[in-house]
């Protein structure tokens, strides 16, 4: 049996989640690994920008806070740490981890850096295919700042087989973080597609951290989660035949059962018979789940088909500016005043010739579900004079920062010029990174690893 735990499901996750997971795996006496997934679609592009400003940066900003608490315990127990927290600068991240190790009396840490995902300048996008899921997104605009390919698990597995105690990656397929250690431990054959599918499924279920153990799940009265402030992050106990049990550490909150596993099973899946990853095309249509004990779910039945000849790449552009500005209206006639504020701003934008796209929401009436044209907000069936605590939200977008600032200014001016009783104006402005997905030939992006050395 091999234990794989999750310590983070995204950049911004709880940084105390890994401790109970490491403690549980260490106590089991079994071999194991802990994975950290902290690289969303655009997180890496932000890392690229950070590296441009300062070449020693570009990795996950909370790297130290995530790794420091568990580094010594993992090394002592032989638990391999695998994380994509390298982001745009895996080498930089390795350096930080090396220093952390020294501070904790861990010398000669074997830290592997996986490379090959960063192909900016190495590929002609005109020869690549747009991924169809982008649909109507339109042609990219702005400065091209990053191209990163989703690599598979092979370099990770090799690094661990060669003795790596920590593996730092940039962009890899999320499930590769788990498949790599599994192949290294069980010596599975890369051509055994059903085993590749099993390992990939382990990764898919673990990659969002607590989303399978009670996170993003509670719906009071319908789905209750014990101790949501102390959710135990998941652990997969994997057998040589590819079957595995999903569980969580003892003495933690959260829950693992058929419901939580099913929600994560289908998360971000499109055709369940063909989930494409670099190492296998995963088919989950025959997956069998069984609750074998409290907070223990057995998973079997993943099937694998030939992987695609193409790899997916995320292409990032430093693009337009988005401003958001909000103002609240409460008490009698709040809805009418909120409507009026929207009308006023739309007229001001036109009157002043401000060149920005605008969207308005009335939070408390319709915001999350609505469309840019406010179809639900204007739907008579949803509107009521009884709504008495409303927040108008404006979003402005333009390629010119100045135009967005001018638009935000108009909202601020509502303090004196707008409807009565408006309060709590807040605004923010940021430049956006747009990401587009492309499919590229596999041969364009070979992966590799090297052991990090201080002088490099």
């Amino acid at each position, binding site marked *: 049996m091999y234990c794989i735990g999750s310590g983070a499901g995204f950049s911004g996750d709880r940084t105390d989640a890994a401790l109970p997971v490491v403690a549980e795996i260490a106590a089991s006496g079994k071999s194991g690994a802990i994975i950290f997934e902290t690289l969303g679609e655009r997180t890496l592009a932000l890392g690229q920008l950070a590296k441009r400003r300062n070449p020693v940066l570009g990795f996950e900003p909370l790297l130290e806070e995530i790794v420091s608490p568990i580094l010594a315990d993992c090394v002592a127990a032989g638990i391999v740490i695998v994380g994509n927290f390298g982001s745009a600068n895996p080498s930089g991240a390795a350096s930080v981890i090396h220093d952390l190790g020294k501070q904790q009396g861990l010398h000669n840490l074997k830290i592997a850096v996986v490379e090959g995902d960063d192909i900016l300048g190495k590929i002609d996008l005109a020869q690549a295919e747009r991924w169809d*899921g*982008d649909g109507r997104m339109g042609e990219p605009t702005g400065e091209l700042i990053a191209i990163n390919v989703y690599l598979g698990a092979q370099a990770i597995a090799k690094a661990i087989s060669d003795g790596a105690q920590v593996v730092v990656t940039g962009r890899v397929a999320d499930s590769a973080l788990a498949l790599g250690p599994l192949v290294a431990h069980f010596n599975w054959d890369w051509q055994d597609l059903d085993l590749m599918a099993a390992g990939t499924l382990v990764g898919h279920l673990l990659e969002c951290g607590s989303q399978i153990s009670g996170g993003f799940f509670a719906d009071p009265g319908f*789905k209750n989660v014990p101790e949501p402030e102390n959710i135990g992050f998941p652990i997969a106990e994997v057998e040589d035949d590819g079957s595995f049990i999903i569980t969580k550490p003892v003495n933690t909150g959260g829950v693992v059962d058929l419901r939580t596993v*099913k929600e994560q099973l289908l*998360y971000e899946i499109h*055709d369940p018979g063909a989930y494409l990853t670099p190492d296998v095309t995963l088919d989950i249509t*025959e997956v069998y789940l069984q609750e074998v004990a409290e907070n223990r779910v057995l998973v079997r039945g993943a099937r694998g088909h030939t992987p695609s000849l193409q790899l997916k790449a995320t292409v990032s552009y430093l693009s337009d500016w988005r401003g958001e500005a909000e103002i609240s209206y409460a008490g009698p006639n709040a809805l009418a005043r909120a409507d009026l504020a929207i009308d006023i701003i739309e007229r001001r934008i036109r009157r002043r010739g401000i060149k920005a*796209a605008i969207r308005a929401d009335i939070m408390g009436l319709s915001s999350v579900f609505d469309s840019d044209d406010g179809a639900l907000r204007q739907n008579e069936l949803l509107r009521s004079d009884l709504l008495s605590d409303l927040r108008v939200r404006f*979003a402005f977008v333009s390629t010119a920062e100045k135009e967005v600032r001018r638009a935000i200014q108009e909202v601020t001016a509502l303090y004196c010029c707008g409807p009565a009783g408006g309060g709590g104006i807040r605004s923010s402005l940021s430049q956006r990174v747009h990401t587009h997905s492309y499919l590229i030939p596999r041969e364009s992006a070979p992966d590799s690893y090297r052991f990090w050395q201080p002088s490099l």
Partner: protein
Amino acid sequence: MTETCTVPLHHLAHARAGDKGNRLNVSVIAYDDALWPVILTEVTEKRVAEALAHRHPSKVTRYVLPKVQALNFVIDDVLEGGVNASLGLDTHGKGLAFRVLELSVQVPAQLLSKTRMSVKLKIKEG
């Protein structure tokens, strides 16, 4: 004559949304095996498309996973540009799982009372 009630899908199933590019997927998972046939009949591509019609999706595809009593809806071009390009509040569309759970569904009253969710529900006259 079988008495039926109209309840939100939220009383019969749970759901989770995921986004990639301008594409959303929403899983719909039966709380109880006994509710699966009703969900299969009632929660169609057409009904999900209607719930999101104001966002003008280009396509809605339903995949059926009987072994886990779940449906998976793939909805294209419903995120108004996706997580980085949308002007909306919830640019990932994470909240849209609950838009789907708002769908009104017809359920035989006896079935509803037999399922485990019945203790949490008030049966309304159809």
